[in-house]
Structure formats: C-alpha cells, structure tokens
C-alpha cells in the first residue's frame, strides 16, 4: 500500500500531483511572491500583471495547480529576482535595473535573492546591493553574505533563505522515520539567537517530505514557504554546466559554464524498487528539486490557514513543475 504521504493519484509511480490542496481561506494575511532567475520572464510577468491581464498568473496556476485557487483569490504582490543556487547566475546591473523598473511599473514589491558566494561573488553582489532602494528585501543564502549585507548595507532588509535552513529533505526516503524531523532548521535554539543578532525578521523554508503542519512552526518572525518545489541538494559542481567545458576543466571547482541551466532541465527517474516510492525529481543546473506531493501541499495549506506562514514563494520560471 502506498504511503499516505505519497501522491494519491495514478500515473507513473503514482506521482501525478492532481488533487488540489484546500485553499487556506482563513489566512487573510497570506500573499504570494514569484521568483525569477532571469530578467526577461520577470519583465513579461510584471507587464501582464500590470496590464491587469495576468497571463503570468495563469501560467503559475498551471505549474502549481494545487495553488490555483489561492492565486485567483490573491494574485502575487511581490517579485523575487535572482538565483538561490549559483553565483554564475548573479544578474548584471542592467538586468537588476530592468527588473526593478518592471516591478515598480506593475506595482509589485521587489526583492533580490543571492546564493552562496565566494569572495569574488560577494564583490559582484555588492555592486548590485548598491543599486537597491532603501528597505528592499534581500534574501541571502550564505552567512558571509548576510554579514556583508548587514554591515555594508544597513538600509536593506535581510531575509534568511532556504539554503540556510538545514533539515533533512530526502525525497527518496520511504518513511518519515528516516528523516527524524523535529521542526525546520530555523527553529533550532542556537540559530534563533544568531538570526536575532542579524536582525532577521523573515526566513524562507522548504516543505520537507512527510511534513506535519507543526514541523513548519518554531520561528518567531515571519515565514515564507517555497512551493511546489523543494530543493534536495545543491553544490558548486554543475552537471549540465560542463556541457561545453574543456576536458581539463570539466567538473573542477569554480568551473565556468555557458549557463546551460537556462536552456535545459532534466527529469530524474529511478527504476522502482519494492517498497520505495520517490517524489518526482527534477534537476536544473547544480540543484536537484522534488515536487510536493498532495499530502505535502495539504500540510502547507494547513500551515497557511493557521497563520504560521504568510508568504508563498512560487517559481515564475525555470522548472516545469506542473503535473
């Protein structure tokens, strides 16, 4: 019998996420943000929202059908620009300024997202941070970047990104017992103190497999939750990013790339083993993602309905995460 936390409908390996989760109607404070790594899709999305013809929102609903009703009731209020996973995808200043302009014209709030960075990456990021209006939210996924941000750009608002939220999210685990969940990574006593030291008021988290609604509680500030994709693992060595590397540089730390992740993605399938049901897995660039199951979406809906999280972050482009 399939585990109750696996997808409930048919299709290969029962992974089709077809059942909409209940809309968290009781959570009036919930709002949606849409994230983009590239500026062109962001500009198109903002333009459609600004024109009152939210094609982009329709596209979002198609890729995240469990959230279609919420999107219809509360269209996105925010854009988050930047990639969480790769320093090679840091936007140019020109792209940042276009994104800022597009968001402003559409009446959407704007946030910048930064990944884990090396010293060279921090130098580049500083040039971006210097262009942001005061009080802009910046999602950081690296403690060093957070230190630089809070010291050098005190007028900006730091949010702790999901890479800083450590928790087991093994998408192939056959049962909750493997994960020993005891709350999300920001709910740990030591980290709470550290986040307070940096004045962090908002954190972003993923929904882990086998989640219970209580697993996303425990942070005293505001909580953003990514859906419908969680990341399972990421790193500096990029599989597709080596497509055009010379043999000598292939898979070397700090390798260059031609941003192949912006052109290709892959679905990762596993020959089934008895008693093992994996979530649907996707790889884009250096990161493996899992798609939420229906029970995970339901748990998240319960979290939103209870007011434990107030922001849903949906991917505006990048992965075909629909059913």
């Amino acid at each position, binding site marked *: 019998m399939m585990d109750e936390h696996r997808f409930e409908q048919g299709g290969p390996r029962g992974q089709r996420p077809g059942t909409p989760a209940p809309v968290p109607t009781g959570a009036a404070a919930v709002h949606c943000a849409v994230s983009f790594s590239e500026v062109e899709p962001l500009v198109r999305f903002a333009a459609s929202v600004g024109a009152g013809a939210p094609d982009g929102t329709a596209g979002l609903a198609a890729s995240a059908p469990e959230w279609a009703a919420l999107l219809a009731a509360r269209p996105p209020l925010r854009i988050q620009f930047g990639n969480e996973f790769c320093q090679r995808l840091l936007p140019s200043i020109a792209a940042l300024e276009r994104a800022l302009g597009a968001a402003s014209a559409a009446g959407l709030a704007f946030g910048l997202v930064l990944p884990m960075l*090396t010293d060279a990456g921090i130098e580049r990021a500083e040039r971006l941070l210097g262009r942001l209006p005061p009080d802009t939210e910046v999602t950081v996924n690296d403690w060093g970047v957070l230190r630089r941000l809070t010291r050098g750009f005190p007028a900006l608002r730091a949010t702790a990104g999901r890479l800083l939220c450590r928790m087991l999210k093994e998408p192939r685990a056959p049962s909750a017992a493997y994960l020993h969940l005891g709350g999300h990574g920001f709910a740990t006593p030591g980290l709470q103190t550290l986040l307070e030291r940096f004045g962090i008021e908002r954190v972003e988290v993923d929904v882990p497999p086998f989640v219970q609604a209580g697993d996303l509680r425990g942070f005293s500030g505001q909580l953003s939750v990514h859906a419908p994709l969680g990341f399972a693992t990421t790193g500096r060595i990029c599989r597709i990013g080596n497509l055009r590397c010379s043999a000598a540089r292939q898979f070397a730390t700090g390798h260059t790339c031609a941003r192949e992740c912006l052109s290709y993605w892959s679905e990762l399938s596993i020959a089934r083993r008895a008693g093992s049901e994996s979530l649907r897995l996707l790889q884009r660039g250096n990161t493996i993602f899992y798609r939420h199951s229906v029970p995970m979406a339901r748990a998240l809906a319960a979290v939103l309905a209870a007011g434990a999280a107030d922001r849903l972050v949906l991917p505006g482009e990048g992965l075909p995460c629909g059913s």
Partner: protein
Amino acid sequence: MRLVVPIAAPEEVAPLSRAGADEFYCGLVPPAWAQRFGRSTLNRRMGGNLPSVEDLARTVESVHALGKTVSVAFNAQSYPADRWDELLKVIERVAALGADALIVGELGVLAALAAQRLPLRLHLSSVASCHNSEMAQLAAELGAVRVILPRHVTLREIRGMCRAIPGTQVEVFLLNDGCVFEEGSCHTLHLPGALGGPICLERFQSQYHRRDGQALAETDCEALRANEEAWDRWLWHVFACGFSVTTEGLPHGPCGLCAISQLGRAGVAAVKIAGRDSRLERRLKSVEMARAVLDRAATGDERQVQEFARALRGKPDRCACGFMCYYREVSPSLNG
C-alpha cells in the same frame, strides 16, 4: 601543517599515530541518543562513530598519552529544539572526559557553545560551508579557533580566507571521501543501498528537456550524451575509482597531495583525511601517503614534492586527468 586523521575505535589511535597522524577526530553516538533520535542525527556520519562515552574516554586517554589531541564531531545539519538539551548534556560529558575540541557544523551551535565557555576549542566543520572570508570572519567572531573549509574551494579562495582570519586556523581536505554536492547544502541521506544509497550515486535516468519547450536537436542529444559519459567518468574518480586501491593498498580517489606546498604557502594550518567510516587499512595507507608528502614538503623543492606525490600511486593517468583532484589548479591537466 598538521595531519588530522579520523578514528572509529580507541584501538586505532596507536597504529594511526605511528603512521604519522598529528591530530585525531571522531564521532560519538551514545546508545541513549541513538535510541531516541536515531543514529544519523548527532553528527554527519551514520557509521564510524564511537558507540559509547566509555570508548571516547579510552580514546582521549590514548591520544593524550601520545601528546596528541582529539576533536569530536557534532556536525549534524541542525539540532532541532526537541534534542537541544540532550545535545548539551552529551557535549558536557565530552568536555568532562577531556576531549580537546568540538567540530560543529552550524554557526548557531557554534555561538551557543561559545557562550557556555566550555573547556574545549571550537572548530567549525566543513559542513558549515564556509566559502568566503566574511563567513570565516564571522566564525572567528563567534568563537571558532579553526575553520574547516568545505571540499569544493579553490586555492585562491583558500588563500583569501586564510588572509581574512590570521588568528584562526584553517583546515582543508587532503584525501578521500569525495562529495558531488556541497555537503552543508545536501539535505539528503546516504540511504541503504537497497534504497538507492547516496543521492549522488543513485542510478537515475536523466531525461533532458529544453526549457523553451522545443524538441532537443540531434546536436543537443549528442552533446548531452557526451556530457553524461564525462559525468559518469568524473563520478567514478570521485568515488575512489570504483572504491579501488593500488596493489600496495594505496587508496584512489579525491586527493590534494600534490597541492600540499601551495596549501602551506596559503597559510593552511591543518590538512584532513576524510572518512572515519572507512576501513582502518585504508586510513593507515592514506596517513602514510600524506605523511610522506608532508615530510618532503617541509624541506623539498615544490616541483619535486609534486612529482613525488603524483608518483605515489603509480597511476599517472589518474592524476593526469584531474578528476581526482581536490585542487585542480595544480593538476597536470591544467598545467601541462
């Protein structure tokens, strides 16, 4: 530079010390913790841990009798609130037994332990993913006396971080135990083999698609096929060339031996052999290799040290391709 070596039992201290270890590190998972929270939640390794505080006591005694030090790893990805109090109890016990340092995997834990003023040094684990000088400085401010850098850093980045924290030691990987992803950002498990093992070794079938929805062109397919083959070759090297050894028992796999001189010049204080859950024989041979190169580096010409390091395994092709290199910048594949 000091050679830091993993141990999984008190009896391993003496032979590994004779082979050339300067310092030791280990994990500890007491039975009560394992029963309550599982074996994979006190540190990053499911295997290779000391099973009791009594074993740790014997280990500390053996190490100190040799005039050396031992660190204990508490580098789980995180410690949720439900196990925080128990964690502190275990750590207090470790301190009382006289261990020399704790290796912690997360800055919140580092800060909290520093505030407790325990009679132990605090090392920041590679699991904390320190990739830049700002984070190294933050770790030092929070109380770390040593920062262990993650696997995937370049020599240039190492130099920058060493310069940024002159009063704090930097330790880096030298041998064994490759990792495809960033360990601190890998939220998966090394599942039992029947469930797929580590996610990086899972035999996925990758079905590629274009993001613009167009069909893949034949040229795309050819390039992707070639890239997948290269990926598989790299994986094979990262995982110790099929977990193999030379006829002399020297392990293949991730290696920074020929970069030892550059690491020393960068300001690295300690180099680490990874894999406390590997067999003792493998670790002994690794220590012997590392010791031999370190001793030559102390007095020898840099080029001669590199040649010596690359000749150790008698497999020049393995070195030449660069896929085993922790620090590819010094690889013959890039430098001719």
